[in-house]
């Protein structure tokens, strides 16, 4: 135990003192926050850009319909001819000129209306204008059928269905996706951690082989102790790095927001197209009811359970994968030889993420989600995506969670045992890159 502690300490310090590691640790949050600030800034600039559209309205209609909104300002023109208007609009640097000719009917006006712009017009502008026309036309036609403006305004109101589970809980649209995103964030974290720090473990094993220190160390400690110490030491360095990242990135973010006065909400907004459809969709999504439900659901996510399971799946999943990485490092002499062995490890991780996004999001308790959340090489990621729904009724059945953890535990023991055997033989082998067949033979040494 004492020696294991020494090894963990050395591996940790070696990693933490490494120059590129230190640079990455402190540079990444700055880069991340810088990116966010840049995006926020660009969004703001984009938002603030107003396109000026002159409106030459010779018709008796559309007197009040062209109201300036986000991105577009309408400037009414009066008493000039179309050609003069075109010239002056171009001179003044306006975005475009909307021309509504003198016609007897509303339909006539809309049919012959024209938008003149310098270049091909921007979609947002087009959609906004078309939306205004469509809306007005609809209202007009309904009026012909005897529907008053007030009645039409009432018809325009959006609608959203109320949903509830059979047990009587109210639920909201997108709640499945929302829950899976929360779990998916944990799963994604595990995958990133495995790929980054598993690679570190592998490189560290290769370093011991190429510097030839391995035999000196192996005469003092058991290979398994060295492997375990290396994995633990590296992961502690990884956890340190992650904590620094989270802490410093949030500090920086807060500081930046205070100093530069950026509204975090900007990042959430999606510039939606104008028009009826858009406004319908918007009113459906931004209903106070829905967001309140989402908050309620978020609070209902069993955080204790989720964090507890995250720790279990994180530790076991990371140990499984990093011991495979260590075995690969032991089997080869240099990093270029590792490709052929790394692909089979990355594959289940990728599969888990894809299955998670395409299957678990839409159907968290479907057969594919269940299978992948029990299969040990993908369960750390997929199960975490299912867990925010809770355990038991309406969530993951308890037996599935237990089976998944039990299988993971058995796999962990088997893989670590196998990896340790390959590691033990591999670290003392120099020369050519082994084949899978040779690795199999090593198991019997």
């Amino acid at each position: 135990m004492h020696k294991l502690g020494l090894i963990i300490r050395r591996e940790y310090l070696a990693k933490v003192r490494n120059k590129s590691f230190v640079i990455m640790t402190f540079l990444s949050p700055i880069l991340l926050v810088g990116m966010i600030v840049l995006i926020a800034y660009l969004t703001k600039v984009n938002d603030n850009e107003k396109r000026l559209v002159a409106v030459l309205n010779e018709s008796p209609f559309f007197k009040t319909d062209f109201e300036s909104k986000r991105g577009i300002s309408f400037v009414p023109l009066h008493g000039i001819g179309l050609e003069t208007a075109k010239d002056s609009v171009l001179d003044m640097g306006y975005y475009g000129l909307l021309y509504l000719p003198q016609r007897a009917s509303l339909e006539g006006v809309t049919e012959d209306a024209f938008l003149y712009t310098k270049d091909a017009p921007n979609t947002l502008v087009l959609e906004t204008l078309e939306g205004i026309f469509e809306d007005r036309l609809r209202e007009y036609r309904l009026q012909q059928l005897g529907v008053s403006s007030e009645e039409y305004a009432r018809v325009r109101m959006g609608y959203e269905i109320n949903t509830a589970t059979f047990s009587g809980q109210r639920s909201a649209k997108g709640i499945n996706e929302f829950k899976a995103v929360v779990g998916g964030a944990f799963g994604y974290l595990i995958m990133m951690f495995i790929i980054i720090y598993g690679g570190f473990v592998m490189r560290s094993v290769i370093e011991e082989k190429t510097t030839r220190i391995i035999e000196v160390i192996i005469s003092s400690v058991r290979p398994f102790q060295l492997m375990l110490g290396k994995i633990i030491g590296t992961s502690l360095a990884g956890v340190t790095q992650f904590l620094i990242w989270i802490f410093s990135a949030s500090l920086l973010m807060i500081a930046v927001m205070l100093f530069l006065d950026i509204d975090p909400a900007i990042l959430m907004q999606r510039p939606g197209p104008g028009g009826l459809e858009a406004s319908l969709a918007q009113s459906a999504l931004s209903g106070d009811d829905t967001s309140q439900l989402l908050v309620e659901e978020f609070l209902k996510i069993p955080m204790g359970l989720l964090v507890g399971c995250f720790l279990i799946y994180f530790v076991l999943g990371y140990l499984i994968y990093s011991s495979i990485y260590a075995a690969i490092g032991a089997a080869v002499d240099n990093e270029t030889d590792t490709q052929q062995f790394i692909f089979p490890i990355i594959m289940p991780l990728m599969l888990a993420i894809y299955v998670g996004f395409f299957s678990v999001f839409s159907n968290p308790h479907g057969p594919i989600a269940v299978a992948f959340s029990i299969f040990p090489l993908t369960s750390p990621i997929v199960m975490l995506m299912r867990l925010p729904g809770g355990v038991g009724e309406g969530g993951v059945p308890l037996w599935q969670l237990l089976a998944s953890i039990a299988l993971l535990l058995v796999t962990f023991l088997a893989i670590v045992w196998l990896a340790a055997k390959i590691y033990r033989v591999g670290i003392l082998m120099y020369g050519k890159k082994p084949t899978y067949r040779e690795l199999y033979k090593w198991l019997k040494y």
Partner: protein
Amino acid sequence: MNSILSIREVSKFYGSYQALNAVSLEIPRNSIYGLLGPNGAGKTTLIRIINQITFPDQGQVFLDGEPLAPHHIAQIGYLPEERGLYKSMKVGEQALYLAQLKGLSRAEAKQQLKYWFEKLDIGNWWHKKVQELSKGMAQKVQFIVTVLHRPKLLIFDEPFSGFDPINAAMIKDQILELKEGGASIIFSTHRMESVEELCEHIGLIHRSNLILEGKLSAIKKIHKQNRYEIRWTPLNGTPAPEELLGRLPVIGPHYDAEDNTWDFTLELQDSEKGELLRYLSEHGNLASFRERIPSVNDIFIQTVQKQESHA
């Protein structure tokens, strides 16, 4: 019980390949034992078994009478042939780490390191990084780390490789001093002249088998071929020795006309020795009469070749 280490009927297989075949040998206490053999004979496997890096498939190893167990690691010092240090670690820190892995406390390790760094004249290297050291300098650090924890059994595999003659002599002196201090030493090398200089016992492994073992002087006695090197000045004129002796020299003869001296080698039975000596001193001046002892190099080549022709 005069052996520090007993290896009994040890066999080791790698898949279908047998690296060691029922090897038994005794390493005498407080002496230097030369473990010899051609490349790939099985020496490294045997050394790794002693260090518990690998384990025998059959047979047993006893250190100081006890079956080999994990706690013995602290009593063995091993300088492997393939050796190195962490490149980006500082010398002192690294030596401290390796010493602690051998079971020394931090304070003890520090004190011992100080002593050895002074002794080998590398005291100012403590804060250097290993990548700044030359190969020979790194070897010195490795030597220190091997002996630092005062093991009773020391195993040196090619300890002089990478050293210039001055430092090699320094390391040789240190090895002898360690032996004086009570340590038992296994010494594996292909440099036969250093075996000759240092070893009291040798064992020769060839193709997974121990084919020769024993006290070096005894082995030499067995391998001597009753040949005598003679330097002699005849009294009258310059007759060839074969005319005088009535027999042919095995090697030589060489005549130096300036000194009127003959050099030649004869093969003699013990019973013939007295008569020949008398004859030579009566008929001339006998400058030297010496039994030709086979060198370790000769014994090595002879024994291995004999095995090859048997196989």
